[in-house]
């Protein structure tokens, strides 16, 4: 048994012959940490998260290995036989919320218990009162209990994302992997989603790995940041070190995309569009803003 919550060993993933989405990535995350995963679009953040969750298999190289709580999710490009059991301990939150639109919110959330209850009961959709109550409590924690009866499609993006977090809570996940959870949200919704993630990390001790587009959020919520570029880990350390100069150094021209201030992330903002031609690009760089606003409580560093 390893004490690491997540251990990724020499993970590589190629799409086609020449594109390496992940290139020899090795990281460890300790139990109870809240880690940001940053990088420009196409740097491999999502791919890494999907590998850790065991949703995608890596290249078939014998050294590729992903372990969660010391148990193998995949190794050598093969997803382990009991990945399904392990998946129930790993909550995943997706950029597009991944709720089932036509199901009610409560059903969407109570689905989180599927990995823990007898298969026949889950398959028939026979959830017990206590399981439904658990789902309601989870919804209450993210401030969504008043919408329990509504269809997921009737809710806004931020509301759906908080419901997705509730589902991970019902799942009683020990690790939460959030893949760009705020990329398609407005700043206010983004803040509430990040608050919810920080809260469950702090209060439940759930390990959180969250991939982000904007360094501002990483600095605000996550003590530690792992930075990816072209599928390689280029930085792994305290988020405070991520100042503008350092990001320029790491990412060159791509750094624009990451340094974007909160106010710049309007709903219409498209990360994949061409570099903005702006007369004074320096304006959007929060050069000397303090890393952590005073009123924001920040989860304590995991003991190392």
């Amino acid at each position, binding site marked *: 048994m390893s004490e690491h919550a997540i251990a990724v060993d020499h993970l590589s993933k190629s799409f086609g012959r020449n594109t390496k989405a992940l290139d020899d990535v090795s990281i460890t995350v300790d139990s109870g940490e809240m880690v940001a995963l940053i990088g420009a679009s196409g740097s491999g953040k999502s791919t890494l998260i999907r590998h850790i969750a065991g949703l995608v298999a890596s290249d078939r190289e014998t050294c590729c290995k992903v372990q969660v709580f010391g148990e193998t999710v995949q190794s050598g490009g093969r997803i382990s036989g009991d990945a*399904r059991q392990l998946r129930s301990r790993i909550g995943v939150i997706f950029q597009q919320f*991944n*709720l*089932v639109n036509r199901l009610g919110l409560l*059903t969407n959330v109570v*689905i989180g218990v599927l990995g823990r209850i007898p298969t026949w009961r889950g398959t028939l959709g026979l959830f017990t009162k206590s399981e439904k109550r658990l789902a309601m409590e989870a919804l209450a924690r993210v401030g969504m209990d008043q919408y329990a009866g509504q269809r997921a499609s009737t809710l806004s993006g931020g509301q759906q994302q908080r419901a997705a977090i509730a*589902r991970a809570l019902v799942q009683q996940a020990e690790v939460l992997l959030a893949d760009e959870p705020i990329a398609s949200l407005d700043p206010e919704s983004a803040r509430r989603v990040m608050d919810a993630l920080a809260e469950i990390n702090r209060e439940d001790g759930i390990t959180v790995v969250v991939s982000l587009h904007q360094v501002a959020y990483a600095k605000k919520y996550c003590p530690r940041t792992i930075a990816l570029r072209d599928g390689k880990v280029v930085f792994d350390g305290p988020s405070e070190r991520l100042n503008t100069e350092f990001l320029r150094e790491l990412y060159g021209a791509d750094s624009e995309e990451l340094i974007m201030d909160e106010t710049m992330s309007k709903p219409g903002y498209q990360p994949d569009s061409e570099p903005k031609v702006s007369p004074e690009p320096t304006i959007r760089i929060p050069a000397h803003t303090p890393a952590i606003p005073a009123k924001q409580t920040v989860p304590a560093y995991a003991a190392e």
Partner: protein
Amino acid sequence: MADMTHSRLNPSQTGEAQLPERDVRKSTVTYLMWGVVALILMWAWEGAEMRPMALITDAANMREYAAGFFPPDFHFWDLFLEEMLVTIQIAIWGTVLAVILGIPFGILSSENVAPLWVYWPIRRLMDATRAINELVFAMLFVVAVGLGPFAGVMALFIHTTGVLAKLFSEAVEAIDPRPVEGIRATGATRIQEVIFGIIPQVMPLWISYSLYRFESNVRSATVVGLVGAGGIGVLLWEYIRGFYYGETAAVMIVIIVTVSLLDILSQRLRKMFV
């Protein structure tokens, strides 16, 4: 290159806006295709022995024949209604059984759910059931299970299963994969992924397709009766063979009214679900 772009941006410099040049190869292909269509139509004309003039030269015959249908004879109206109900009952069970089997077959013949070695053979099996008309199945089942409505139910059931499996699987292939992945990530089994991730997404379409097939099965059920597989078709066939044209007309009117009413009803129902 730079100059061309420039002049395109400023049409005033070159005078008038340029029309795109006609692609000679493309228009030749278009003409050729029309030529092929014309050839096919001429070829089929021969084979089908098309004689539109017969409609005019034999007009007197036809008038006499048509006159035989008037007035429609509703003397045995209670028998007509009874047999019409049997026809609807055949359609109900033929459709229900087809829906029950169409769901698993539809899911298993979807590319995004089943692997190739599962969906390919199942698709071919479903193709086979669709390729053969209900009427043919009805004749086979009349021999197998005897004359009567049950043969009709079986004929509709087999054919409709093939149709619904195809329609159902097309709906499944068009789903949004992300909710399914969300459910997989909770540690759910494959069957649970289908039940909670796929079925809620395709339900409205599936209901709509099933109702539509019910409508067309009522129409088909009148036809399978012609070969003895029960319902109002049996009656219709007897009357036509016996030259009872007044009764034939009455039966046809009963069928038309019933089918129209059911069409309206099922259209209303479908609108509720989509």
